[in-house]
């Protein structure tokens, strides 16, 4: 197995970013086909295809599509989560920049299927290039009756709006994103079972279908090539179907986005990215900064799949795969990771707001050579008191990587505390940080 280019097939072709070029490669045949299909048949094909959300959690997509009210009593909204903020991930950015029509077609198709009125694409404020490419695509679609009123003469109306974020990782969390879209601070809301699912009451308290960019981009392929074909991709895994985009970065020779079929060994991803640079492989964070770190031995045996990654105690997550060479100081990495979550915590709940800061303080004093004998236990205690006790998953996501780093590399933490400096001959750039 090697790269399997489905979504990324035409990324190098600038024409793919124009309507004409997109249609020349089969673009919009899926929408035209869908407009003649029963809505329930489309939902069924998403189910047969086995598509799972690509935003991180990997929930089956058909649950959301099928959960939207069949009988339309009020407005229905669609949201595309393009607030990619997970450190190590840059796949949605590439999709926006190079495949904007895939997203526009995928969302329009979704709009038809769940009887949507307006789709909001919530783009991270920093992604100007992606937003501009998408703007062009949306404008072209409007000009050609592929968006707006009476699309292709079928009586179906659908609008797409771009909404720019303003710098907050927490707004990637779906309920916080909805708060933000409604003009509030980006703080999360109660979730099921304390509150209804977004498909019942989402943004503006109306039924809402929310997906990640990559999830929507898969839809045209499912409709075009058939769900059975889609489900044949990744058939070697337990329950992961299709392809997955991985953003590979860190100490590799060819960092970038790589698309692979589910079931591909993780070590092939490393080979695709040109192998490790600057020394031997020391560690890998396979799915974005929130996911537990793994060892080179784990990288040898890991298979990419939502269930399969559990064998090495990690997860596919958002696909931000970082490899680190032997000169990486794991304690400082833990410090910087904790710092990220402390900075991005929205402050709504105590375990996360206070706990992340405590983790930073403890790790900072260890990094400065002032670590105390009980610090490892203290850190474990703080982390375990955030995990599972916070209002939204950001708290868990802050605790997991730190807990995993302490579990996988305990001797580094012990050495650092005992000697007051790192056991790794760290690259000069990291001396004196923090």
């Amino acid at each position, binding site marked *: 197995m090697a790269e399997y280019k489905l979504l990324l097939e035409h990324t190098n072709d600038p024409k793919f970013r124009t309507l004409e070029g997109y249609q020349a490669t089969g673009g919009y045949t899926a929408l035209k086909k869908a407009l003649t299909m029963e809505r329930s048949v489309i939902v069924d094909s998403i189910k047969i295809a086995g598509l799972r959300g690509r935003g991180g959690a990997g929930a089956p997509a058909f649950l959301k599509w099928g959960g939207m009210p069949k009988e339309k009593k009020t407005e229905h909204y669609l949201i595309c989560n393009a607030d990619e903020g997970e450190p190590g991930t840059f796949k949605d950015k590439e999709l926006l920049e190079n495949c904007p029509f895939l997203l526009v077609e995928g969302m329009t198709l979704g709009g038809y299927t769940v009887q949507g009125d307006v789709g909001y694409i919530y783009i991270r404020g920093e992604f100007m290039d992606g937003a501009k490419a998408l703007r062009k695509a949306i404008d072209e679609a409007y000009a050609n009756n592929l968006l707006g009123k009476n699309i292709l003469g079928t009586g179906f109306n659908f609008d797409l709006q771009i909404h720019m974020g303003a710098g907050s990782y927490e707004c990637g969390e779906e309920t916080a994103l909805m708060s933000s879209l409604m003009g509030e601070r980006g703080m999360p809301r109660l979730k099921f079972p304390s509150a209804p699912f977004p498909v019942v009451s989402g943004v503006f308290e109306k039924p809402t279908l929310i997906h990640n960019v990559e999830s929507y981009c898969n839809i045209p392929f499912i409709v075009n090539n058939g769900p059975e074909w889609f489900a044949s991709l990744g058939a070697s895994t337990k329950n992961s179907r299709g392809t997955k985009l991985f953003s590979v970065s860190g100490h590799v020779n060819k*960092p970038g986005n790589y698309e692979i079929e589910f079931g591909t060994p993780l070590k092939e991803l490393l080979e695709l990215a040109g192998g490790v640079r600057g020394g031997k492989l020391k560690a890998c964070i396979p799915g974005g900064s929130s996911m537990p770190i793994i060892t080179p031995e784990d990288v040898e045996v890991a298979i990419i799949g939502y269930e399969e990654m559990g064998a090495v105690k990690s997860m596919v997550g958002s696909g931000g795969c970082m490899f680190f060479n032997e000169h990486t100081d794991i304690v400082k990495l833990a410090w910087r990771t904790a710092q990220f979550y402390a900075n991005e915590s929205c402050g709504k709940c105590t375990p996360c707001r206070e706990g992340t800061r405590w983790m930073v303080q403890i790790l900072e004093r260890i990094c400065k050579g002032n670590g105390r004998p009980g610090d490892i236990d203290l850190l474990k205690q703080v982390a375990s008191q955030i995990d599972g006790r916070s209002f939204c998953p950001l708290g868990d996501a802050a605790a997991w990587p730190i807990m995993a780093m302490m579990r996988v590399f305990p001797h580094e933490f012990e050495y650092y505390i005992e000697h007051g400096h790192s056991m790794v001959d760290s690259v000069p750039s990291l001396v004196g940080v923090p």
Partner: protein
Amino acid sequence: MSELIQLGNPNQRPKQLRPEDVKLNFSEQGVKEIEALISHYPNKKACILPGLWLAQREYGGYLSGDAIAEVAYRLERSFAEVQGVATFYSLYNSVHAPGKHKIEVCTCLCCHVNGAWNLRDYLVTKLGIRHGETTADGMFTLEEVECLNTCDKAPAVQVGSKYYGPVTEAQLDALLEELRNSEESTVVQYANDIVQVQLRAGEV
């Protein structure tokens, strides 16, 4: 009881600004743009984020109290509510007026292991300012930021709408020189780009 429920309803917050308390400084173009943006949403409140971006452009890159008041007034919300939103998000300059150019150095994981701190130190020495500070001539603001999600180009730097990476010290020198000589403020330009990208062609 019913009064309590009303007060708790975020859509019915009291204390809207009175016209005599607000200075209206939006340009004619800005007024048209905010009206177009409002039409994208089912209510005016949802337009607070786009409205703040617009104000950030209209007020030269800084969301001063006047700027926030104008957004609140035009969207019929209270000052406190809009200020609360503005201060939550890191891309709104609501605390200090930024310099003409804001240099954002990513020090998050991938950049952290790829020399970002060297770049940071280099800029601190060269500009004589630290995280969050602005040079005395008002030219540059330095910020250490979280992952810019362009980790394939680590260490990465963002100025306005543009990404740079992997950045070397020599490239930073050239970039600073270029920015110093540029007419326009990248902070204002960036806010304008964000406003434009949310508007459909021909909408305003």
